Every structure is written in C-alpha cells, then in structure tokens.
C-alpha cells in the first residue's frame, strides 16, 4: 500500500504545521478502503462524498484559523449501532435495513464537533452481539493480520478498519468485551471507559447496565485524544456521570515509576489457562513494567467463573428485555446467533436476575477492596490469538469464562494493549484495569508500555 499510516497525534502535528492536508489524508484512507475492504468488510456503509466534503471544509478552516483541536480533519468511523443523522444505521439487522435516524448519537455529535471526518459506518454483529454471524445483511469483518481469522466482536469493523489504516480511529461499544476483544485480536488499542463517563444516548442497547461506549485507535495516546472529546455529562443518558473530566493526554509521558500494578494471576493461569503466546506477552509486560519502575503485586479475586456467570445472566436478561417486542413478533427476522441469545432470556427467572445483581454488588466491593492500594490491575484480554473465523463456537457464552466481563460487571475502566505477537504472527494483548474515572492513569501506563516496546511499529501486511 501507499505511505505510512500516521497516528492521530502524528497527523494532528503535521496538520497543524500545514505539512499534511486533511483532504490528502482522507484520500489515502479511502484508497486503503477501496483496496482492502472487499476482503476485510470493515465498512457496512461508506460515506465517501461526505468524507471528502468534510475534509475539504476542515482544510479550509485550518488554513484560515488553524486546527480547532487534535481531531480536526482526522478520518474516523462509527460502529453501525451508533445513530447518525441522515445516514443509515442498520445495527447489521434485517429489522433496521431502512433505518435512517433523524439525530446523531451523542458520541457521534461530539466527534463531529471536534472536526473529525466521517468515513462511514463500521461492521458489527447484529445489535452488538459478539459474533461472528454469517447470515446477516453484510458479511462479518475479517482480521487484517490474517483474513482467515476472527476479529472478535462486536466492534469488529472498528478493529479491522483501524488496524488496516482505513480510519485513524473509531467508536466501539463494549457489553462484555466488544471494544477490548477486537482491539486485542486486531492488534490495536481499545479503552472501555468507566460506566457513565461516555454517553450511551443514541446507541442501540445490548444490556443497559453493562453497555459502555469508547475509543479504539492505534495506540493509547490516540485513545486519550479521542476520550477527551467523548467524555462528559449528557442529560440524554440517565446513567451519565456528572463529574469533572480529567486531562487524559497531560499525564502521558510522565513515567510510571512507583505506580502499583496488581496481577490477577489466577484469572489467566488457573481459572482459564491462556495460550503460551498470550502468557509470554503477559510475563514480558510484567518485566517491562518492573523495568520502568512500577511495583508489582499479586491480586486475588473470586474465580473468573463467578464474574462470568454474574455478567452473563445480567446480559442475557437485559438484552432479552430490550428486544422483547421484536422477539415476540419478528423473531425469525433476527440472525440465528442473535435469535438464540434472545431465546436464552426465557430461562432466567426474575429471582435469578436479582441474585445476579446482588452478586454484582459483592464482586464490585471485592474489586474495590483489592485495588485500594493499587493503581491498576492486569490480566489477559483473550485466552489465545485470534481463532479461525469458522471455528468460533455457537454457544461461546457457555464455553469458557471471558476475561473482560468482570470489568463490565464492575463498571471499571479497562484497556486492551498489544503485548506482542503469538502463534501465526497474530497479535496478543494485556488488559489494564483502573479505578473508576481514573482513565488518565490507565492511559499513562499503557502509553509507557507502548513506548518501551516495539509492537506499535508493526502493521498488518495488508495495510
């Protein structure tokens, strides 16, 4: 492909210095889309004309007054469960093929206000189910590191699109790992913020109390830039937190000497043993953090299976609740995978649900106590490198407990950071989890790790 793909921070510096034109940057991204998306399927709806018009408008404004901020003129994509005024928002479902919202989701509105260039809507699995699904209106996204392999879901198009350089960043949503999973398997960075930090207004629900909206980009610095634009109170979202916003980029580069990192060894070594490549990435990351001056401690929590059961029951019920009306009247218009997820709601009683929500309080209190004297905790994101896309089990919810759900249950900020490459040259990742509303600390540690390791210097061959 053409020239090197810049990060947001690099592009912003070049745009500010008038060394890079938003129009040229957008055209370079479009060139990658045209060359690669026939195989990667990252986009469900490309807004090429709009992108070029927005890029030209950004260029004119920047030439006259300079950039309004680091996202001015930056090509982005939005997961196709994010409402976009006048642009189809299908949630990858037959039920919404003709849906054109009359207003933007808050996150879309905020990114537009920051001057971004919207390249289009990105592939998801139906209503943000984890996927993969092969019976939806459009095919599933493919992993740019090896197109026989899964991207993870459900923010699959965002993961593939960022990794392949078709966009510099995008919006993901995360109910049990749908930001961090695709970030991990596609070798990029993805941050699930604290519950309530980024508004959910205008984004199709998966499970109300577990849903998070967040940034996905090539590295932690770019996630920080995006989060600065996204965070903030929104009266349209009843769960939106009304509290001061941190400066997420200011702490980057400050070093991590003396910070305390707890390792939840039993999650990835006993409760669900990870692959050799993933374990090597975790061990090497711990050594890197120690070398950077962090203090490493051990953390013990309830078994991963407890967190998984709690989150899964809540997720099953809340999803079935959100889509109950269509399940009763149009069940067979859903794809098979979403249909089966909706059926599961039948078997969870009201008492089961409330027992899960009581367990949630206990687990959250447990994490709070465990992190009292720590800055972050660390575990795996996935148990292994990306599986082949045809090998993902239909009933993965009952297969093995996931490493990401615990932090949807707790609502704590959690980030996937590339920690190397395992079997077949596919990316592996670590998960860093911070205290509520302490995203600046998570990003600072992730940024320090990325700068101390070579993994951000390597892109998929296709890009």
């Amino acid at each position: 492909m053409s020239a090197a793909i810049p990060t947001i921070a690099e592009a912003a510096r070049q745009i500010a210095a008038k060394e890079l034109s938003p129009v040229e940057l957008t055209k370079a991204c479009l060139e990658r889309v045209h060359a690669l998306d026939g195989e990667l399927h990252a986009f469900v709806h490309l807004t090429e004309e709009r992108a070029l018009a927005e890029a030209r408008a950004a260029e004119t404004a920047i030439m006259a007054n300079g950039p309004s901020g680091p996202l001015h003129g930056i090509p982005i994509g939005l997961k196709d469960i994010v409402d976009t005024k006048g642009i189809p928002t299908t949630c990858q479902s037959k039920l919404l093929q003709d849906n054109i919202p009359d207003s933007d989701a808050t996150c879309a509105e905020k990114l537009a206000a920051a001057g971004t260039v919207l390249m289009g809507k990105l592939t998801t699995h139906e209503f943000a189910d984890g996927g993969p699904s092969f019976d939806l209106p459009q095919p599933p996204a493919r992993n740019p590191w090896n197109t026989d392999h899964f991207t993870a879901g459900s923010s699959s198009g965002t993961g593939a699109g960022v990794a392949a350089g078709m966009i510099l960043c995008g919006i993901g949503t995360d109910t049990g790992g749908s930001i961090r999973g695709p970030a991990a398997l596609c070798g990029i960075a993805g941050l699930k913020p604290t519950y309530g930090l980024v508004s959910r207004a205008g984004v199709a629900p998966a499970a109300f109390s577990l849903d998070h909206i967040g940034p996905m980009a090539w590295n932690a610095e770019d996630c920080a830039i995006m989060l600065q634009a996204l965070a903030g109170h929104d009266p349209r979202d009843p769960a939106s937190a009304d509290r001061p916003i941190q400066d997420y980029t200011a702490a980057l580069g400050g070093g991590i000497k003396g910070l305390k990192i707890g390792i939840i060894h039993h999650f990835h070594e006993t409760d669900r043993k990870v692959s050799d490549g993933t374990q090597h990435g975790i061990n090497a990351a711990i050594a890197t953090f120690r070398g950077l001056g962090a203090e490493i401690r051990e953390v013990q929590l309830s078994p991963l299976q407890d967190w998984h059961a709690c989150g899964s029951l809540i997720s099953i019920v809340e999803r079935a609740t959100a889509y109950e009306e269509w399940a009763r009247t149009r069940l067979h218009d859903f794809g098979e995978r979403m249909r089966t997820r909706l059926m599961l709601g039948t078997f969870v009683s009201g008492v089961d649900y409330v027992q899960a929500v009581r367990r949630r309080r206990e687990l959250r209190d447990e994490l709070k106590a465990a992190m009292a004297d720590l800055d972050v905790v660390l575990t795996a994101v996935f148990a292994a490198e990306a599986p082949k896309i045809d090998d993902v089990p239909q009933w993965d919810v009952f297969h093995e407990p996931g490493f990401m759900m615990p932090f949807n249950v707790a609502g704590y900020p959690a980030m996937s950071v590339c920690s190397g490459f395992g079997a077949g040259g596919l990316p592996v990742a670590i998960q860093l989890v911070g205290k509520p509303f302490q995203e600046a600390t998570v990003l600072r540690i992730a940024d320090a790790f990325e700068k101390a390791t070579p993994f951000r210097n390597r892109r998929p061959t296709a890009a």
Partner: protein
Amino acid sequence: MPIPINDAAFEYLLARAGLTLTDAEKAELKTVCDGITEMAQRVRKPRGRMAEPALTYGFAEEDLS
C-alpha cells in the same frame, strides 16, 4: 447438579415468553438449559435477606428540585 427441564416446563416458558420456535430451535435451546441453571446457581451465595442489589435507586439533586 442442575435439574433437567421437562418438556411441559420448557413449552410453558416459551409460551410465557411469547416465542414461536421451530423444532430444531427448541432442540438446540434445550442443550443449553443446564448452562443457564449452573450460572444461576453460581450467583447464589449465603448472603441473607438484607443483601442489596447493585442497582439501588437513589435520589439525585435534580430529583429534589
């Protein structure tokens, strides 16, 4: 051990949920009933009647104006 669901209970739950399934879907769904039951058992701990759920409604400032 989870108690296996019988056909009558299974049909009752589907009817109550308002779901119309094919025989193949019913057969597949039955295979995962035990998984749900196991998760439901796992979230139950000896905690007594006073244990509160995580989502407990509280009045915010704006509710009081």
